[in-house]
């Protein structure tokens, strides 16, 4: 009986000591921690290529057809806007209005956005610009280098559009909800 008790006590001691010994071996390490914090603010970026466009209507050539049609189209994909944003965004546009021989209507300048997918507010087809910002594209997520090829069209009228040079400045604004 005493022997059994002794064996039990020995086993108990071993049971305590062995894990302790091996536990020490397993803890043969040292640790250090480092925290990495990245704060990302709303970021959006708009680039524009072929931003300056011009057309010359020549008598007995392009002018006649254009006046007959009531408009002249400028070259497609000019300008092309490229959008990057890390959250929902919208792109808007406004016109300064024409300066020229007479006060040609701001609405005579029309724009269409050939982007497939995110053109909005009817601008996938020609729509008149105004002096106030109008949304021409938007998306509820971030995008990277999304292309928006645009095209201008100017309405023509024999009775109003006397010869001369007509220039308008169009301003594009990309905005995010937090920017």
């Amino acid at each position, binding site marked *: 009986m005493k022997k059994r008790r002794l064996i039990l006590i020995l086993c108990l001691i071993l049971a305590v000591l062995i894990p302790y010994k091996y536990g020490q071996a397993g803890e043969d390490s*040292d640790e*250090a921690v480092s925290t*990495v*914090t*990245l*704060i*990302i*603010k709303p970021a959006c970026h708009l680039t524009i290529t072929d931003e300056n466009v011009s057309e010359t209507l020549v008598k007995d050539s392009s002018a006649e057809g254009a006046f007959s049609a009531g408009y002249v189209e400028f070259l497609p994909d000019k300008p092309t806007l490229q959008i990057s944003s890390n959250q929902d965004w919208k792109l808007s546009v406004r016109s300064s209005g024409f300066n020229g021989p007479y006060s040609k209507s701001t609405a005579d300048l029309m724009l269409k956005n050939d982007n497939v997918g995110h053109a909005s507010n009817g601008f996938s087809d020609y729509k008149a610009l105004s002096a106030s910002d109008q949304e021409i594209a938007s998306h509820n997520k971030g995008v*990277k280098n999304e292309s928006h090829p645009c095209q201008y069209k100017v309405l023509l009228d024999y009775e109003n559009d006397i010869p001369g040079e007509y220039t308008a400045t169009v301003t594009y604004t990309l905005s995010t909800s937090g920017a």
Partner: protein
Amino acid sequence: MSVHKVLILCLGFFLIIAPFLQAAEDADDGVSTVTLIIEPSFNLGISDQAVSEILTNNPETYTAFDEGFVEFASDKPILRISANKTWKISAKSSGFSGPYDKAITDLHLRDRATANVENGFGDYKALSAEDQEFAASSSGTTREDHPCQYKVLLDYEKDLPGTYETVVTFTLVANGG
């Protein structure tokens, strides 16, 4: 004189001079044993452990997003290793907390130390939730510096504005301890 008397005299004489004979050999040895037990000893120090970057709406940020990553300041953190035996150091990431479940592998680490860097971590390599060894040596070292640098991958389409935070745990292990 009888032989007996001579013997007794000799014995007496010997007993008298015996202590002097011992005195002549009056030397003693003392021994001392010096035992030094050196357990595996190692230490991992870290400086500049908390690093942060802020991306604001500016050209640097556009460049970072266009390139697809932002690099944090170099040599942050610096790990300092001391070990008296073969060692290895590993790193793991807790994963990002933030506005969305940003991939844990978007955090990259490189070790700019000139020696003992392993497993491709001389250049940026993605971290994971598992320990990955990035430096090791088969011998001891004293205050060996490992200047590290982080890089985080960026994606306009995923990386919403917000604060992204992760904890990187470096573990120095002395083998066979």
